[in-house]
């Protein structure tokens, strides 16, 4: 590739220079094809792309970790310039050389903080291990350095943390430990593979800040692998866009956002949900999505204002719903602790309306969904559907209610039975609820449903593994529609999807809402998607709603400090904007409480028509 000759204007040479790298798996499947890029010392290069674009394989291949995943580097070179000595081609380096570079000159942070620390060793042990190995420190000095490193990533109480095990830490804390571990030997290059994807937004903002600060302090170059254009805009100096194993574009971050050259980059950027894009508009709006069709971008969908909500009479009324789970029992079976998942939550959903329930992990948003779907028994409170109290319903009526309220889960693969055809899975609710008896008629209905969600009737005979992630989520939507429900609970239903797929599924949900007059309870942590899809928004924090109002009120006039914090934590896909200065500190407190210690229920006051805010003096103990 000739467009990648080293930058002649800079006097120094690049730290890392990847040239025509190709990586193959199994019998000739090329995951990475002929990819080249440079990383300058102290700079951040973002590698972006969707799942299957080869971005993660590229990052593993740099340190030759692909050797352990069955991958083979079949072409190209990876020239790395260590602190001392000449540049080395890592693709040809000996195992000993590689081991002396790994963790020492080049370190890596992985995506899943929950699984990237070894569960059976203490935090201190795992950090010290690298120091003992590469810096030949003795156990005492290594421990001391480990403590300093933990302080550097702003973990409180570092001394005690050294002797703790990973499972005793939250996801955000573990990711900081991971960063401390990676930075232990002052690496010249840090490879971060989706380091914040699995974290809550406020924690993500903290981690990004830490990486940025330490990078400046230590002069580390960073390769940042991500699919999130907001993160790219906040972190990167330069951007490499990958698509189907190839690099399709490379440019400084401002140029990528201002003037994307390759059609795929344009499609990718157009699909990114942007916070504030619907400013001044009272209703959510469907907008066309640019998708890649063959090699060409194509606009799909139409612009349509979602004026579907009918505020005459609520479909679902939730009043003072409380759900608690017992955890921790004494020897004699007495409960010592309870999870206060949901505490006196009240809200209504109207026909044709989308109510978004937003909050971070542990906020209780999913428990509300499960309670409505009767998967969890509420501790107290009433739920009325169509004016009828759920608790007073007969067994048969409750069954019928299951048909009227359907659920779409986060993971489209885990929620479809891999041993049945998707046609079978879609037909199941129809059969279970006895909606249609005739086999031919059921088949016809399944075909209709598949067409409604943008699939083909002949897909009914296929199995879940034959579909892509986005198609599988369409199948799940078809299944949810099969029993002709009036309310659909979508629990993080688009969170795991690539942005362009996500945008299409959001459009599909909105289109179905209009066509079938559906109501949605849209549970998510993603504020940008919320802005696009919802009529009203309820913000949850530690089991209680802290703010409830129209979409416009919440996004344009947030009143509660937690809502503001949540909104400010969302990375904005605009590199022109000044990078986040706001310091967000602190973990989300645990909803587990000893028996007898009830949380304070905060009062709500109305600050505008239908805009309710929790009185902060009552609640938010140590939250903001």
């Amino acid at each position, binding site marked *: 590739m000739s467009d990648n000759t080293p930058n002649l204007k800079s006097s120094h040479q690049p730290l890392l220079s990847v040239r025509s790298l190709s990586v193959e798996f199994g019998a000739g499947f090329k995951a990475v094809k002929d990819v080249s890029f440079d990383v300058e010392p102290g700079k951040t290069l973002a590698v972006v792309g969707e799942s299957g674009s080869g971005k993660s394989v590229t990052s593993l291949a740099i340190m030759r970790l692909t050797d*352990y995943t069955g991958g083979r580097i079949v072409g190209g070179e990876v020239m790395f310039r260590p602190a001392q000595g000449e540049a080395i081609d890592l693709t040809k380096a000996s195992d000993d050389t590689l081991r002396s570079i790994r963790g020492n000159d080049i370190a890596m942070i992985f995506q899943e903080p929950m699984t990237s620390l070894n569960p059976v060793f203490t935090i201190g042990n795992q950090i010290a291990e690298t120091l003992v190995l590469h810096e030949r420190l003795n156990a005492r000095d290594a421990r001391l350095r480990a403590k300093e490193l933990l302080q550097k990533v702003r973990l409180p109480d570092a001394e005690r943390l050294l002797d703790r095990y990973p499972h005793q830490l939250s996801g955000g804390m573990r990711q900081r430990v991971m960063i401390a571990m990676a930075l232990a030997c002052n690496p010249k290059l840090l490879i971060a593979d989706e380091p914040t994807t699995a974290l809550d937004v406020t924690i993500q903002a903290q981690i990004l800040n830490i990486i940025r600060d330490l990078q400046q302090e230590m002069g580390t170059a960073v390769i940042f692998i991500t699919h999130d254009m907001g993160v790219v805009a906040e972190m990167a100096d330069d951007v490499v866009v990958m698509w189907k194993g190839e690099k399709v574009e490379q440019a400084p971050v401002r140029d990528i956002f201002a003037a994307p050259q390759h059609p795929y980059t344009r499609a990718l950027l157009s699909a990114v949900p942007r916070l504030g894009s619907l400013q001044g508009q009272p209703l959510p709006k469907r907008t066309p999505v640019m998708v890649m069709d063959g090699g060409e971008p194509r606009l799909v969908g139409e612009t349509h204002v979602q004026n579907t909500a009918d505020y005459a009479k609520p479909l679902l009324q939730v009043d003072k719903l409380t759900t608690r789970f017992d955890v921790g029992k004494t020897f004699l079976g007495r409960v010592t602790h309870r999870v206060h998942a949901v505490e006196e939550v009240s809200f209504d959903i109207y026909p044709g309306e989308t109510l978004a329930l937003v909050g971070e992990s542990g906020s209780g948003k999913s428990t509300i969904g499960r309670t409505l779907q009767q998967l969890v028994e509420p501790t107290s409170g009433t739920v009325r559907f169509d004016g009828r109290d759920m608790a007073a319903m007969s067994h048969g009526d409750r069954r019928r209610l299951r048909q009227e309220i359907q659920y779409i889960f986060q993971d489209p693969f885990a929620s479809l039975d891999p041993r049945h055809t998707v046609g079978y899975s879609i037909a199941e609710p129809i059969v279970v609820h006895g909606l249609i008896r005739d086999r031919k008629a059921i088949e016809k209905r399944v075909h209709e449903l598949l067409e409604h969600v943008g699939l083909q009737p002949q897909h009914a005979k296929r199995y879940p593994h034959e579909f892509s992630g986005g198609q599988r989520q369409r199948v799940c939507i078809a299944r949810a529609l099969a029993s002709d429900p009036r309310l659909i609970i979508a629990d993080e239903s688009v969170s795991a999807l690539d942005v362009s797929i996500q945008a299409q599924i959001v459009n599909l949900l909105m289109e179905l809402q209009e066509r079938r007059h559906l109501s949605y309870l849209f549970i998510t942590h993603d504020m940008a998607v919320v802005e696009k899809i919802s009529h009203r928004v309820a913000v949850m924090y530690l089991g209680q709603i802290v703010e409830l109002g129209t979409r416009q009120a919440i996004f344009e006039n947030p009143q509660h400090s937690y809502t503001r914090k949540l909104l400010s934590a969302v990375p904005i896909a605009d590199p022109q904007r000044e990078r986040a200065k706001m310091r967000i500190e602190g973990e989300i407190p645990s909803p587990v409480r000893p028996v007898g210690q009830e949380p304070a229920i905060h009062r709500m006051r109305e600050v505008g028509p239908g805009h309710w805010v929790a009185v902060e003096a009552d609640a938010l103990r140590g939250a903001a």
Partner: protein
Amino acid sequence: MAAFILKRLLQAVFVVLAVTLIVSFAIRLSGDPAVMMVGGAGSVTEQDLQNIRQSLGLERPFIVQYLSFLQGIVVGDFGKSFMGGTPVSQLIGRALPSTLLLAFASLITSIVLSVPLGVYAAVKRGQWQDQTIRILSLVGLSFPNFWLAIMMVLFFSIMLGLLPPSGMEGPQSFIMPALTMAIILTATNVRLVRTSMLETLSQQYIMVARSKGLKDWVVLYKHALRNSAIPLVTYIGLQFGGLIGGLVIVERVFNWPGMGTLAFDAIAARDYPVLQGTITVLALFIIFINIVIDIAYGLIDPRIRTE
């Protein structure tokens, strides 16, 4: 921890009650010790047999016999053997150490063999080394232990004259019985280690360990093995029951003076006290091993410790 051990001890009491009740009842269905004692000679009158039963306390109702046996256990008295009147505790005292020695020797041999082989097979997954290990393990699984024992005697003792064919006469006597048991245990344990290691090696923290620049053997034996140990330790606990069962046969073939031989002879002679005593002690021992294993879980995995 104290609560946990207390709970397990309570369970142990129930297990011992159930096991002894079943054993005591079942052996009484199988034949009359009085007839066995007189060797089935025709010249014995019914009155003679009656007298023998009376002297052994067998004329009492079953439940009375069982309760008096339980009463004895509490103070550590298992009664006297019907054959020769030696106290059962003395017989067990002689047999238990040789059985435990054999059991632990075979277990340790099997661990020493199966862990490196299993780890190696996992690392070489799908390659010829892995295939070979898996085929060998299947072959090992297919051997009945008595056949393996006899083959070993034929080969090492009779053909080569290297090892004593039977008895317990010194360290060499251990090799064949321990190896017989070990081969069978190893065959299953290798597969278990392999599967468990494959699962662990696919975890992200293993990739993290490699990205730190650790040597392969540190990654495998420090980071991966301890995470793979739980299934192996669980299985070893379960194996103990089977191990003891297997020892009955292996001890027979090698004429090893252990608990297996003692129990076997007691069944043949309808020697109720010896059989009840042996079974009770073995049951207690298996319970003890399983408590040790539960404690070991916590040592291996801190996530279990805090629960």
